[in-house]
């Protein structure tokens, strides 16, 4: 597990963080990690693992029972978007978004211009003057994320920011967050949308059974279960003994009713072209692909492995 790389500019550190609720149940315990500026961190874990408790503590919504939260600079702006709708029901859409700028003392012109830009980015321009209670759940969630981005936060704590959003809106929101992290902000995003997290996040914080199990880069996390990629080749005819022998060092697995599909683990040093060169006329390849374990695959395997360990 890494907490940060040498030379990284740390924005936020947690040390032995824990929260015990009044019913004596721990929401999370012994959470330790350091988060660098410019990174988009996927906070992963099943329901009840402790993700929301962690984000709530970082936002100051609830007080930790033990441990410490440290920010590198007290002037860093922190934006929080809760899993639950966090909206001022007395204000309209524009006023709710502008609230994010007002609280940070931005001048009126900046607030107005930035709110107009965010309304457009979040496809809310036509609903600017609408009472927020008239918006759909997804629209309310967009208002909430837009308000979080209004002040250009240096640290973004986003709990399920895409839960009520459609596919396009989810990608838009994560793209916008990613833009901000590329400018040097830190984003912690809790979500079950693993496909999007894999696409947009740099690091993974994996929380399971109220513990931080893993904190590492997305690439390392994806290789943590199966370090090699997988190559899948489909041939026009059954694979010959000669071809099988040529690719023997890859320990291929032949499959398919006609023994015409080959699957093999591939280390990062060997390219798909290298394998195709090895075949060199001993078979006609009709389809070739290099696959790696997806975030979903790794997540499911790690969760199952840990649950199995706990049950024993």
């Amino acid at each position: 597990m890494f907490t940060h790389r040498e030379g990284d500019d740390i924005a936020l550190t947690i040390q032995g963080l824990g929260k015990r609720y009044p019913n004596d149940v721990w929401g999370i315990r012994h959470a330790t990690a350091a988060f660098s500026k410019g990174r988009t961190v996927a906070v992963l874990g099943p329901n009840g693992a402790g993700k929301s408790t962690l984000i709530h503590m970082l936002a100051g919504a609830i007080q930790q029972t033990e441990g410490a939260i440290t920010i590198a600079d007290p002037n860093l702006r922190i934006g929080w978007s809760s899993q639950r709708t966090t909206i001022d029901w007395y204000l309209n859409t524009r006023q709710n978004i502008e609230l994010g700028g007002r609280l940070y003392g931005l001048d009126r012109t900046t607030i107005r211009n930035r709110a107009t830009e965010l309304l457009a980015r979040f496809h809310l321009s036509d609903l600017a003057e609408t009472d927020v209670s008239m918006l759909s759940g997804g629209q309310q969630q967009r208002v909430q994320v837009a308000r979080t981005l209004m002040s250009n936060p240096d640290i973004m704590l986003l709990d399920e920011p895409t839960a009520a959003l459609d596919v396009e809106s989810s990608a838009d929101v994560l793209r916008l967050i990613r833009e901000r992290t590329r400018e040097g902000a830190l984003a912690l995003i809790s979500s079950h949308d693993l496909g999007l997290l894999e696409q947009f996040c740099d690091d993974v914080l994996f929380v399971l059974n109220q513990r931080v199990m893993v904190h590492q880069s997305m690439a390392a996390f994806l290789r943590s279960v199966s370090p090699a990629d997988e190559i899948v080749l489909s041939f026009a005819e059954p694979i010959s003994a000669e071809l099988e022998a040529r690719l023997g060092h890859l320990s291929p697995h032949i499959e398919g009713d006609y023994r015409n599909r080959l699957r093999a683990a591939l280390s990062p040093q060997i390219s798909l072209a290298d394998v195709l060169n090895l075949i060199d006329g001993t078979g006609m390849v009709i389809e070739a692909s290099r696959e790696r374990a997806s975030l979903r695959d790794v997540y499911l395997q790690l969760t199952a492995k840990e649950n199995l360990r706990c049950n024993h």
Partner: protein
Amino acid sequence: MQSLVTPSAGGWRLHGFRPTAEIEIVALLSEKKTLISSLLLEPVVQLVILAAGLQGAFQGAAFTDHYITWVFPGLVALQTLRAFSRTMYRTVLDRQWGMLTIKRLAGVTGTGYTLGKIVPSAIALSLQLCTLFLLVLVMGARFAIVPVIGTVAMAIIAAIFWSALAIIITGFVRDYIVRDMVVTWVMLPLSMAAPIFYPIETAPTYLQWIARINPLAYQVDAMRNLLLYGQFQVTGIVMMILTLIVLPLAVRSVSHGDALSSQGGR
């Protein structure tokens, strides 16, 4: 590295007062129907219907020769109670829906938050008092200008007291059903057990005892003595001391502990 224990920890600094007040004023203006009702309807009902109706019953009473003039300071004090319900609604909303967390993250201090919450109540109260004073003048009451200014100042202090008390109570309110219950159970008995429409001396003994622990009773008495007799009595000092006690407790209530209550709901 700075420890992030309580984002809002800012002692008595006023940081965040202005945005909080601005947001509360925007919210106040968004409730046009409620605003019109509280500015016009309630003072009209209380003064033109209830007080005017009771005037006949107190004809020839020993404590006053003009009931409308006598009851008026009590009605002024009664308006201040609206600050309690208004602040209660807004602060419970902030706590339940995470808005308090967002404000604390933005560096809004407990003092800035508490005083910012009071501003719209003070504005609404000033407008209510304008309506009341205009009505009572039309109904024949006459007051000297200095006691009027003093009474308005006292009313604003009373509104600060009720707002601060509401903020403290919201720390214990977990949902909006309890919130509504608290508002009903606080406002109705307090307003009925204070000497607004009747002199406390003529009330049954148990009511006189209740009045001794009813802050509204002290506020009514202080405003009545100032407006009718130009006197600043000990009840005025009690009223100010009570305000000075609850204000720091309200600041502490929003500065410390969990900013998010357990349930949602408006």
